[in-house]
């Protein structure tokens, strides 16, 4: 855990008080402290070993005006008294040049708070392994991958990472909260080569908040090998319309796009396909999308959001109907609504919108049943490029995966694109798998979407 020579909670509340003395009408302070360890091995040899800690402080000040606030922020890695002094002076000077914004301001008094009880976010066991053992874990993952098949001839390496962090937030309305979190992960990325010399690389990983919850290096390595091998010999297919089955790891991107389209800042700007659509059907009736920042132990869980509001569960889409936007205090005021406690923030800058544990609810069929139902189509395991325009909904991305014929995998494909419009894609979700699993903060089951265009030869 990070070593602390000054009490960071005192520093946070002291900084709020000093800012008010210096002329701020309101102030918010964020302090982050963290340690990280990472090691990578390649072909059995240690490649990198990295170990360090850092911390930083961010201050956001608000100056009251007749009809709103002027707002500015500063950040620093210097927590010594004169560094803090400069932080305050700088923020207030900067706020004087900002415009008066009638919608700016902290949340209402009754809104602040935090979830009580143990959210199981921090486990000291992530650092329980001695360095040699961590290296051994990475080696085991890589070795398991390479041993799976003689065509696995090279490696982009395997790694073991661990980190702990502490976040403190204080504001001038009396909120003071902090939480610690931990994380560890193991990953492997083998490279396969076939007789033609063609190479493919894929990877697999496991991450957990507690070391004891991490999957074994062998299982990670074997899964990485399976994923890499199945792409060997990939070819292109003809340009056509075809049903597309998104594997969970790429279906996550669709869920992320739903979140972004529901984000309040895009809504009040009119820059989203979901603007003005609250209460309307935006997806197939089987689709329910939830953001829940309260799940104990979750990768996206926190006791409070970046504005000091207790984290909560928000149903974004329920049975295909858009039920809620995603809001922080500012976006909520702009829209005449209440915050959904989705504020995130960096050390400097205004709060933005951030997800908690974001997921699309599982359906009944297994992934195999969904695949068996496709006569001729594409199973996508990898996507490339950004490719989603949330203003228009236009969606176009590079893809690789497996071609499906008569419900079975026929051959691997690559160097193709898939395209459609997100508005249509959400309505054309025709199957939702039962295989929902949180491997990171955003999760989705296998999804089948009809009516998209595959572009290739």
């Amino acid at each position, binding site marked *: 855990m990070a070593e602390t020579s000054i009490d960071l909670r005192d520093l946070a509340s002291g900084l709020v008080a000093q800012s008010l003395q210096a002329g701020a009408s309101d102030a918010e302070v964020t302090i982050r402290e963290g340690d990280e360890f990472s090691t990578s091995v390649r072909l059995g040899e240690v490649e990198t070993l990295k*170990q360090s800690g850092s911390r930083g402080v961010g201050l956001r000040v608000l100056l009251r005006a007749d009809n709103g606030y002027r707002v500015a*922020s500063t950040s*620093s*890695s210097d927590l010594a008294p004169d560094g803090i002094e400069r932080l305050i002076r*700088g*923020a207030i000077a900067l706020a004087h040049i900002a415009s008066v914004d009638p919608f700016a301001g902290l949340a209402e008094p009754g809104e602040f708070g935090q979830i009580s009880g143990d959210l199981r976010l921090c486990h000291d066991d992530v650092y329980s392994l001695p360095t040699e053992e961590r290296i051994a874990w990475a080696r085991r993952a890589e070795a398991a991958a390479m041993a799976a098949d003689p065509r696995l001839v090279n490696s982009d390496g395997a790694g073991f990472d661990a980190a702990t962090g502490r976040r403190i937030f204080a504001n001038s309305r009396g909120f003071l909260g902090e939480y610690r979190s931990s994380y560890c992960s193991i990953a492997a990325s083998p490279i396969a080569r076939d007789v033609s010399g063609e190479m493919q690389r894929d990877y697999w990983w496991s991450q957990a908040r507690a070391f004891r919850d991490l999957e074994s290096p062998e299982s990670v390595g074997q899964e990485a090998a399976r994923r890499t091998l199945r792409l060997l010999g990939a070819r292109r297919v003809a340009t056509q319309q075809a049903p597309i089955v998104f594997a969970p790891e790429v279906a996550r991107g669709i869920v992320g796009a739903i979140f972004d389209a529901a984000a309040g800042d895009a809504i009040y700007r009119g820059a989203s396909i979901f603007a003005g659509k609250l209460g309307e059907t935006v997806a197939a009736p089987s689709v329910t999308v939830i953001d829940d920042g309260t799940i104990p132990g979750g990768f996206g869980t926190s006791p409070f959001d970046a504005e000091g509001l207790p984290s909560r569960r928000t149903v974004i889409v329920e049975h295909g109907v858009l039920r809620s936007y995603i809001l922080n205090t500012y976006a909520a005021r702009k829209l005449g609504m209440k915050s959904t406690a989705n504020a995130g923030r960096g050390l400097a800058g205004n709060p933005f919108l951030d997800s908690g544990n974001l997921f699309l609810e599982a359906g009944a069929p297994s992934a195999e049943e969904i695949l068996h139902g496709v006569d001729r189509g594409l199973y996508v395991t990898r996507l490339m490029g950004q490719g989603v325009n949330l203003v228009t909904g236009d969606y*176009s991305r590079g893809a690789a995966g497996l071609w499906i014929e008569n419900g079975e995998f026929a051959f691997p494909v690559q160097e193709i694109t898939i395209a459609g419009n997100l508005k249509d894609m959400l309505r054309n979700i025709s199957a939702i798998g039962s295989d929902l699993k949180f491997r990171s903060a955003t999760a989705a089951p296998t999804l089948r979407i009809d009516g998209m265009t595959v*572009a290739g030869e």
Partner: protein
Amino acid sequence: MDHKRYFFEKFGITERLLERCLGEALSAGGDYSDLYFESVASTSLGLDESIVKSASQGVSAGCGIRVVSGERTGYAYTDDLSADRLLRAARTAALIASGPAQQPVHAFTETSSPSLYPAPAADLDTDLSARLDLITRADHAARRYDQRVTQVRSSYADELRRILIAASDGTFASDAQPLARMSVFVVAKDGDRIARGSSGGGGRVEIGYFTGAKGPEFFAAEAARTAILQLAAVPAPAGEMEVVLGPGWPGVLLHEAVGHGLEADFNRKKTSAFAGLIGRQVASSKVTVVDNGRMALRRGSLNVDDEGSSTQETILIEGGILKGYLSDKLSARLMGIPSTGNGRRESYQQIPMPRMTNTYMLPGEDSPEDILRSVKRGLYAVNFGGGSVDITSGKFVFSASEAYLIEDGKVTAPVRDATLIGNGPEALKHVSMVGNDLALDEGIGTCGKEGQSVPVAVGMPTVKLDRMTVGGTR
């Protein structure tokens, strides 16, 4: 320029302390050690709905200490620059090796370096009003452009990064690197049609740059023009066709298709689709591609790289033949190739690796008009959102944000956003015409690799590819 004094005076660093840290870093038997001190001051202002909604400034300082032992790298960093903490970080990094000290710390020799960008005249927190003026003018200009413009966001961000590098091989270098960028984002609406447009530019420049031809009015008009144009866009075509790429930012094609694949680390590990292809034909004979870190004011330029090496112009592909890789110190030593001064890192918290700087294709002899006229049915793509590449399979994508159909040699309807996909070692073999109109992008590029972002530039003349796959819907 002598920027080392900044660290000596502000943080109490001395040459003696640098030598002690390097010695401590080699105390367990490492072959090489280096120290990377970094101090960054940044400012960012944002105008949204015609008011200044965001204003922020940040400072950070720290030191990263690296120890190399064979192919192994140990790394530790600290944001506390006291002698105790620096020595402790050095001992942590040293643990990558095990044994008695073997290498001495050589006497420092300063890397000679050019002055490709303005040295800081004063601290950055002067003249906020000039920055405000820029984003306010951009807002006005975008709204004036067309009544269908409904939303405008404009922002200005700049930073000054000071670095000091000292290495056990005697390398000693310092630099002060300015970086500024202005951006404009526009939403336009016409009935129930809605579209976006964005533009921006900058480089290793100071604010005075934006009072020239590439000022707020230029970027605002570009963003607004793109958004208005997109209101009338038709669905993009799908499938393989002739593609003409316009000059400038479409050079992101080179960055993705060949640039990353030629970074030496991937080739040392033989994980790149380009591994072992030196001396082989990887592009049409009309194609020559260089990476040049030594261009005045460009976003990817560096007086010295982040390992203290001199930067240079490196020929990657000449007349279609693969000539060389982009290297950092580690890959140059392990591969026995020259260092090209391409060792870069995002910050003191990161290990350096081979990265691009300003990457572009040299001009050919065709006129852009002739190139377009030669196309029967195809796509003319003049602006892109960004791209990415799988360096092992060689497959790369880049996403067109402004493109048109070409029908019988004429540029016709604008098309909606579409991703283009190709295979790096093959794509440039289909280049059949190269224009005489080389341009670099406006200075907005940021490249990501293994979680590290660094500023880069790309460039290209108008280029015709006889075939490429366009990811539209019809």
